């Protein structure tokens, strides 16, 4: 029994809709941006409002090396996708692994910075307002990097097993959107925490 009498003769123009993966990821990125925006607003509002030390200038060093690593990982990610679209899976794997390593270096760098602050400087989230806003904002970003690294690792394993083919380039691209977003957020966090706030 036909459930639908609604089939009608449509016109023959091709019916193209946006990719749902991309739209979904962009929506998620908008939501994530709003979360970051609130944390950034709190950070900026509380700059210089701590009642006692330490101040950012006393304890923070500008993390140039890991910033370069993270930003270049966006570039290698872009190359990885571009080669996958051409079907060159071997070079895709190479670029993807470089991206993974660069991301891991960034996370390790943040970890080292925190270790130094906590154990050498005795500076924690409880110390003052600066500590609260610094650890929450940088930590929120680091947790996003961690989520990205988990995704990168899964794809890397699949890629090394030879499971990633040309037809997966769109899915990898959707994931790449997230990674580019994490990088772009770092530009904001870096500016606010290490330049404006210092």
């Amino acid at each position: 029994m036909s459930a639908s009498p609604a089939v009608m003769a449509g016109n023959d123009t091709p019916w193209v809709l946006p990719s749902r993966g991309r739209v979904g990821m962009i929506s998620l990125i908008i939501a994530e941006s709003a979360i970051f925006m609130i944390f950034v607003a709190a950070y900026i509002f509380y700059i210089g409002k701590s009642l006692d030390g330490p101040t950012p200038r006393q304890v923070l060093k500008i993390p140039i090396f890991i910033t370069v690593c993270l930003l270049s990982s966006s570039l290698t990610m872009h190359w990885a996708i571009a080669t996958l679209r051409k079907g060159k899976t071997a070079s895709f794997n190479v670029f993807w692994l470089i991206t993974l390593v660069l991301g891991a270096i960034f996370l390790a760098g943040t970890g080292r910075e925190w270790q130094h602050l906590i154990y050498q400087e005795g500076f924690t989230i409880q110390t003052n307002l600066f500590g609260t806003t610094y650890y929450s904002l940088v930590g929120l970003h680091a947790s996003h990097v961690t989520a990205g690294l988990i995704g990168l690792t899964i794809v890397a394993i699949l890629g090394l097993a030879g499971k990633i083919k040309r037809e997966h380039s769109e899915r990898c691209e959707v994931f790449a959107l997230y990674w580019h977003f994490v990088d772009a957020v770092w530009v904001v966090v870096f500016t606010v925490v290490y330049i404006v706030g210092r």
Partner: protein
Amino acid sequence: MASESIALRVHKSPLHVVYECVATADHKKIGLMYIVYALLFLVVMGIEAILMRIQLSHANATFLSPEVFNRLFTLHGTTGVFFVAMPILFGFGNYLVPLMIGARDMAFPRLNAFSFWMTAFGGFFLYASFFAGGGLSQAGSAPDVGWFAYAPLTSPTFSPGHSTDYWTLSLLLAGVGSIGAAVNFIATILCMRCPGMTLSRMPLLAWMNLVMGGLILVTISPLTAAQLMLMADRYIGGHFFDTAAGGSVVMWMHFFWIFGHPEVYVLIIPCFGFVSEIVPVFSRKAMFGYPAMVAASVSIGFVSLGVWAHHMFTVGMPSYGNAFFVLTTMVVAVPTGIKIFNWLATIWGGKIRFATPMLFCIGFLFQFLIAGLTGIMLATAPFDWQLSASYFVVAHFHYVIVGGILFTIFAGFYYWYPKITGRMLNETLGKWHFWIFLIGFHLTFDFMHIPGLLGMPRRVYTYEAGRGWETWNMISSIGAIFQAAGILIFVYNMIVSYFHGALAGNDPWDAWTLEWATTSPPPDYNFAGVPAVRSRRPLWDIKHPDDPDWKYE
């Protein structure tokens, strides 16, 4: 055809139904689960409201203790916004949007199930605080900080025990669910439309859900962020809202209302969609001013993002701040007015059928107008200085939420129940429901404005005699009983009609959108073939091949 699918439905064993609910990723089943879940909490929050109305019905009442009263208004508000209104609208959206745009399912079915279960878990978690919220210190059980939980009341000093953590975590969970649902709605509406369903031909309900999805992305996320900050303060010694360490409590207000005000539009905009589907069908006319309607909704969405601090006029902002938020708030009235005029123009000259869905829509039009007018009064900063946090405000926002949102949700139930179950709701009972609920609504909330004007503050558990508040409160409490009676009729109607209602057939209202093109209830696959659309009223085109709409659009 319809009776066959109903017969199939009845023969499933209960265990099978439970299994289907847990395992399903079908948009219709998830939509129904959202709706049933929300109705359950509607009854819970209704009982909370009745208890509070009994306590307030006369002066110096001792029916509830102050502590219990605080918990009740906190849970009533939190439940109403997060576990009744949002899930019920997600439920209707889930059920209807794919059908209306001619799709097989939502864009991400498993994300859809995940979102539902997160929201559901959040609600049950909130109520689990009754059993575990006291913690080892046996502090108060359920959260009692009010639905906007102003700092520093939420700090460990003033909220010992775990009740506030239950509130925070449950909203965090529900927030994740809502963001998942929003992502899904946006992707579905933009990427799953059937051939020919351009954005300019999309049913207005789908448009409204698109706007709602966009708003959720940028409003629920700030709430999530604020809850993370509050958790950092309570658990790991953060100082975000800790004045002793230089933190600011006004910051929480800003962050909460950056979420809180657009949230109202998250709730009302899909309701605009209901009205825009129902009013044309029962006026036998195409929607008047479709593009203006879309433009107005989108602009309401944008403007609503810049009005939040009108909740904070009494905090003492600079005069520029006050002036800015007064003006932006008043600007909202312009697109809203456009919508009201469009609905009136649709009804104007139409061949009106006063069936129950239409009655509720007409009730909505009057009440939403009044709610908007008291909103403009409260948007005026000097007026707000007098009446902020009084019963006038309580009356105003209940006029929006009950008189606006709940009335359209009832309209939606009467309109789409036949599609969902295959049987009509009883029309006589429906009219009883409408009139009794209407009387109850006006008794409660019209008269609630007056004690507010006379100075009665919100959230007081009792009041002294002789201030002139008693009569008005008694009338409000009597109205609550009428509303409860109306709801009971509605619930009875839904249960009885499910088994004995008249068979609906595919298209009982002679409507024009695609959901009425398939069977009632629709099969798992929605449409046997992919529909193709050439106008805003595809079903009209099928019924009237000699005079289709697309010739005129």
